[in-house]
């Protein structure tokens, strides 16, 4: 049995070593520290999959039911898979991208890493909230300090204020739950949900919805998305889209589906309608973008709106599909943002119109770009497809309108193909004649992510089998 605390301790040791490194120069380089911490964690995770995970519990203040307890719940494993693997890929990429104050960046990076994992495994809501906030704060600093020089800080502030509102509403939900069940422990709350008066249930459900809609994000709370995705450093954007937005989905499943299932059933039609509207709206928005990074930011939101549709339908099949889609999207969008950053570095522009014919200079990059786009478009055999299929099957049974979201996929096809055509196909522009293909590090990054995209695409049962509790 692997104790869940180990998954937290290893990165914490990594953080400690990073700090100690300032005093003892003999320690191995900071990259190796971070990487080995994450790799050890991944190995622990695999061992855990084989031998099972055991919980962890330390009481801190019983009067407010605050105990540091970790326990896997019904959707932990898939999210843990995402949380222990994707950051390794992003890190391979970040070592190249981040040039100044590397060590501090790594510090924040590990903080995000450990807090995302902790959110997924914590069973005490206070612990959940603490790490939820630490993740937000760390990303605030990543965006603010390493992002765009002029607008990074502003974007970070916008991100913080928006998501902070979401966090506060989540806190309110937790307190309400505590008020009526007398505990912050997830399993205790789940068993005492009947104690909640119905109006409290309504209030908490709507507060939770606000949290989720801000975090994922869903129209009309997506105002922070573009700025923070666009002005973050690319590795920050990857963290935002692959890890942070998944926290929203995780919370929605864990609480919305896990605790307020009755209310979810009552409201599923309007919620699905909202999701469908968001999907179409954001697909149109993305079609209007000329800038690759903006386009990808919006498209990331598009897939999250599909996830929203899936979870709101309240059918376990669709929820399983949402989990699948979230995990797979985490890998895919990371890869696409990576490609977009490399293109930006090589061509000096983010606008695909100004690129052209890059495939002849960069066949490998083009391969992974097209691969990522096809994966994103839900080509079978790649990881998005099973998720989308399950979501649509599940939500169609609830509301036929969910199929309208397929039109959004049509629009995505349109803009993605436009991107391929403008950037990779066509005649090579003379200014790009001297470009070289991706470096070994970047290749490793791409191969690493592609492996998971392919693996989950071919064997979705790997994840679905862990979702038996849904």
């Amino acid at each position, binding site marked *: 049995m692997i104790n869940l605390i180990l998954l937290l301790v290893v990165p914490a040791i990594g953080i400690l070593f990073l700090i100690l490194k300032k005093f003892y120069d003999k320690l191995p380089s900071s990259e190796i520290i971070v990487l080995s911490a994450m790799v050890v964690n991944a190995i622990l995770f695999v061992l855990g999959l084989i031998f099972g995970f055991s919980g962890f519990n330390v009481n801190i203040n019983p009067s407010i039911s605050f105990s540091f307890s970790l326990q896997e719940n019904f959707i932990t494993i898939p999210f843990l898979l995402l949380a222990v693997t994707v950051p390794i890929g992003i890190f391979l990429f970040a070592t190249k991208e981040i040039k100044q104050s590397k060590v501090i960046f790594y510090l924040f990076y590990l903080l995000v890493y450990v807090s995302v994992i902790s959110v997924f495994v914590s069973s005490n809501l206070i612990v959940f909230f*603490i790490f939820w906030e630490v993740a937000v704060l760390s990303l605030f600093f990543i965006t603010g300090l390493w992002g765009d020089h002029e607008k990074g800080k502003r974007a970070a502030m916008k991100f913080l204020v928006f998501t902070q509102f979401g966090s506060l509403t989540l806190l309110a939900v937790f307190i309400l739950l505590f008020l009526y069940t007398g505990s912050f422990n997830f399993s205790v709350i789940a068993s005492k949900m009947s104690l909640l008066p119905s109006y409290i249930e309504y209030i908490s459900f709507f507060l939770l919805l606000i949290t989720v809609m801000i975090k994922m994000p869903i129209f009309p709370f997506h105002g922070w998305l573009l700025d923070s995705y666009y002005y973050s450093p690319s590795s920050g954007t990857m963290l935002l889209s692959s890890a942070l937005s998944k926290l929203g989905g995780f919370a929605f499943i864990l609480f919305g589906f896990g605790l307020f299932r009755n209310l979810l059933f009552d409201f599923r039609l309007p919620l699905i309608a909202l999701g469908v509207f968001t999907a179409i709206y954001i697909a149109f928005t993305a079609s209007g973008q000329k800038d690759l990074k903006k386009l990808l930011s919006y498209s990331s939101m598009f897939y999250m709106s599909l996830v929203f549709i899936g979870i709101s339908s309240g059918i376990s099949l669709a929820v399983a599909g949402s989990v699948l889609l979230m995990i797979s999207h985490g890998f895919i969008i990371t890869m696409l943002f990576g490609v977009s950053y490399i293109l930006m570095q090589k061509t000096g522009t983010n606008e695909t119109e100004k690129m052209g014919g890059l495939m002849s200079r960069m066949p490998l990059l083009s391969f992974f770009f097209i691969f990522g786009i096809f994966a994103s478009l839900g080509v079978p055999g790649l990881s998005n497809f099973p998720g989308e299929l399950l979501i649509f099957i599940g939500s169609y049974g609830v509301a036929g309108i969910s199929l309208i979201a397929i039109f959004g996929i049509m629009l995505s096809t349109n803009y993605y193909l436009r991107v391929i055509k403008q950037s990779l196909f066509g005649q090579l522009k003379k200014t790009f004649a001297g470009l070289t293909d991706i470096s070994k590090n970047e290749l490793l990054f791409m191969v690493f992510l592609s492996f998971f995209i392919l693996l989950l695409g071919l064997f979705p049962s790997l994840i679905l089998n862990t979702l038996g509790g849904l």
Partner: protein
Amino acid sequence: MEYLNPQYILFAGILLLILVDFLRHSLKSNKKAILHYLTAVFLGLALVFDVIYGNMNINLFSEVQYSQFVTGFMLFLSFFIYLFIISDKNEHSVAIDISYLSAVLGSTLVVLSSNLISMFISIEILSISTYALVYMYKSGNALEGAVKYLSTGVISMVILIFGISLIYAGAGTLSFSSLHVISYLPFIAGVAIVIAGLGFKSTLVPFHMWAPDTYEASKSSVTAFISSVSKAAGLIAMIRIFFFALPVSSLFVTALFLSIALITIFLSSFLASVQDRIKRILAYSSISQAGFAFISIAVLTTRGINAAVFYIFAFAVADAIVFLAYDMFENKKIIYKKESDSMTQVSRIGAAAFFIGILSLAGFPPTIGFFGKLLIFYALFSSGYFALVILTFFALLVSTFYYFNILSEMHIIDKIIKSKKQVPIKKEQRIKEVILIILTLFLFIGVIFA
């Protein structure tokens, strides 16, 4: 053993100081340091005895369930703030030591008083000593700040005593144990006026106006005392009167409290966000913290009071840290928000403590500021004030905005580890840093008191 209470210790300390100072003058000795150490020893002793024996318990002053905790943390903070003050190179007169001790004595007495008159007197002791403290360093506009403090303070005292007299007219008694709510108009007006009078000490809008000026004018280490210990005393007095003395929660008290609290929270948040000078931002933030504590008192339930007491503790510690840390920066002329960049050059540990202190003020986990807010929301929810909580969220967002405006300029963690150049660090700064570290630790372990 019966008389080993902190109050007696402090009182003995004051007397002893006066005596020793007199002796020193007669001996024409110039060694003031021994007196400072003496003061510190007395503060420390008071803290120890508070923990062991609790407070004094006589007629006009009696303990209630939380008072040992409150006086405990007051003494604790006072002790460390004082250590911080004396670690400074600048010598100060013995009068300051005496004022400091009496201010601490006054604030513990406020917590303990069980009679309106004894409470009034305790507040007076506290106020008069703090006027002196503000004017401790005769630099810049300290005089202006002290005078403003004094003038508004005097008026508030007048108001307070007027309110007390109206209450007496209505109830015929001043003892908390025999007070009760009666619907006699002058009595009601008296209660309202008492709120106004106490609002001055607790910097509630609209009685807060002296605070930013005074905070800014006085030395930051003194501000730390005023904004934590002294303000806590005012808020605890409120609790004592309105929860323990007038136990029937009546509509008008709640309405008054809530409206004052909301106005305080919102106005101070907005005002803080438009300031340029760090200290003014901190001053307004401190006002808004008082507003949060007050909103928790407003629900007038045991949960609310517990939350309020814990919150007062939380923000008092955080405020003390922030102002003490800022004291180090102020010496290096870091005044404006934009300059917060160079905080780390002064002291890295100071900057880190400042950072964590602000996180706590902003209510981010895992600091006790977060747990304080958690308890407050819990109290509000259990009394059914759902909309109110959502409303305060917006104020919290604004506060997040201005707090992080400071922090994002700081590049703080960046520099804490990065800057490799070793600035020769003076011994006194080391002491200050140690104090800050100890206090900062409390921001994390303080949750056990919740």
